[in-house]
């Protein structure tokens, strides 16, 4: 295996997703492709040579024209305020990847799929859903996605469209902090009852991918195992107090 080398990527588009989240569409010459769920390392360099590196999940499906990263701005962060506040089209940044070989899904890995996301944890799962749609996969999939408010839901319209396609994807939102008038969906954190109502039965042997803040992932993964799901079919990605995936 050759070393993953740093590449210079150019920002083609900066797309706001929510008040705190943007998608960066990057032109990456020589990009060799990736698997849905993988991430890249991003490196920033200040004028005095100081460097900061962080990992970010890839949001786009393999084969997309551009590599897209969706980044949540963390107020106390060092890298995310730059990526999600400072970068403009035409700017460049260094990245290398893709990396990560476990939290990945392709249609050949089967299902049914249970995807559980908290906040920006939806990003690698979105790469999976985009790939599923792009390949015409019929693997049944259910996304349970927890956000603080409806305004904090990332990819809301695209998720609505994907769910309306009638190809076996169901999307369920939980809004934990505030709900719009007339909201009839879940209005609490994800819990075991919700996982039973929305998810698959253990006997259906779903493949589960859970991504979000540590507390959510710890709780959901533990609840899935307690409900009788095979721990070996529950894959997790947690991000800690500083938002590192």
């Amino acid at each position, binding site marked *: 295996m050759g070393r993953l080398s740093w590449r210079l990527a150019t920002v083609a588009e900066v797309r706001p997703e929510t008040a705190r989240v943007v998608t960066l569409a990057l032109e990456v010459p020589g990009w060799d492709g990736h698997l849905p769920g993988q991430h890249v390392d991003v490196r*920033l*360099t200040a004028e005095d040579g100081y460097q900061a590196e962080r990992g970010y999940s890839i949001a786009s499906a393999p084969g997309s024209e551009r590599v897209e990263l969706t980044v949540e701005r963390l107020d106390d962060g060092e890298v995310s305020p730059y990526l999600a506040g400072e970068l403009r089209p035409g700017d460049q940044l260094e990245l290398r990847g893709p990396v990560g070989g476990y939290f990945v899904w392709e249609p050949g890995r089967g299902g049914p799929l249970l995807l559980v996301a908290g906040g920006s944890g939806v990003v690698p799962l979105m790469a999976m859903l985009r790939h599923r749609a792009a390949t015409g996969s019929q693997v049944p999939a259910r996304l349970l996605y927890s956000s603080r408010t409806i305004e904090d839901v990332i990819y809301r319209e695209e998720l609505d469209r994907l769910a309306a396609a009638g190809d076996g994807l169901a999307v369920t939102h939980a809004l934990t902090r505030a709900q719009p008038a007339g909201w009839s969906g879940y209005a609490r954190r994800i819990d075991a009852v919700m996982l039973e109502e929305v998810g698959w039965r253990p006997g259906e042997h779903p493949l589960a991918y859970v991504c979000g803040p540590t507390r959510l992932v710890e709780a959901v993964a533990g609840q899935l195992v307690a409900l009788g799901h095979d721990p070996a079919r529950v894959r997790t990605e947690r991000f800690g107090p500083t938002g590192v995936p």
Partner: protein
Amino acid sequence: MGGFVSRGFRGRRRAGAEQATRLPPGQYAETGFPVLTAGPTPRVDLATWRLTVEGLVAGPREWTWEEIQALPGSDFEGDIHCVTRWSKLGTSFAGVSVDTLLEAAEPRPEASHVVAFCHGGYTTNLPLEDLRGGKAWVVWEHEGAPLPAEHGGPARLLVPHLYLWKSAKWLAGLRLLDHDAPGFWESLGYHNVGDPWREERYWGD
């Protein structure tokens, strides 16, 4: 790619020179203790907990929770480094030195490598030399409190001179081999050795 500058990036103002020299390349100092795990956190019952040292040893050994607590204790105080780029400086763990466990089981001369295996199925591989000479521990306390389950409790391996994925959580045992055998992350794109000072993160680094 020397000379590239990220327009408008200043970075967090650096802490003192001491911190700078303690951080391996590409790492930043983290005051919390993030959790990185590929699957659910296993719940391990202390009543049935065992730690084994097996494989190429003169006598395989097994310790219960009470037995391992009764061994001479050993503390680690220093820095730990995760491949996801955070380092935690000046932290502490308590447990037993891996030297103590190896001495009890007596590695055979042909033993050269170790696979650490865990509740939940995780594995990681290390050269035997990386576990000897006061460089590795089995720990069950972090900063004076029992090691939380999400950080590998009841007990985890601690090999602080390598990236933290080598410090296997929910440790069940050490298997000594006469050859190298890549573990979980080592088979999925991560470096076989994982020395943070050489920035050995991924295959080919």
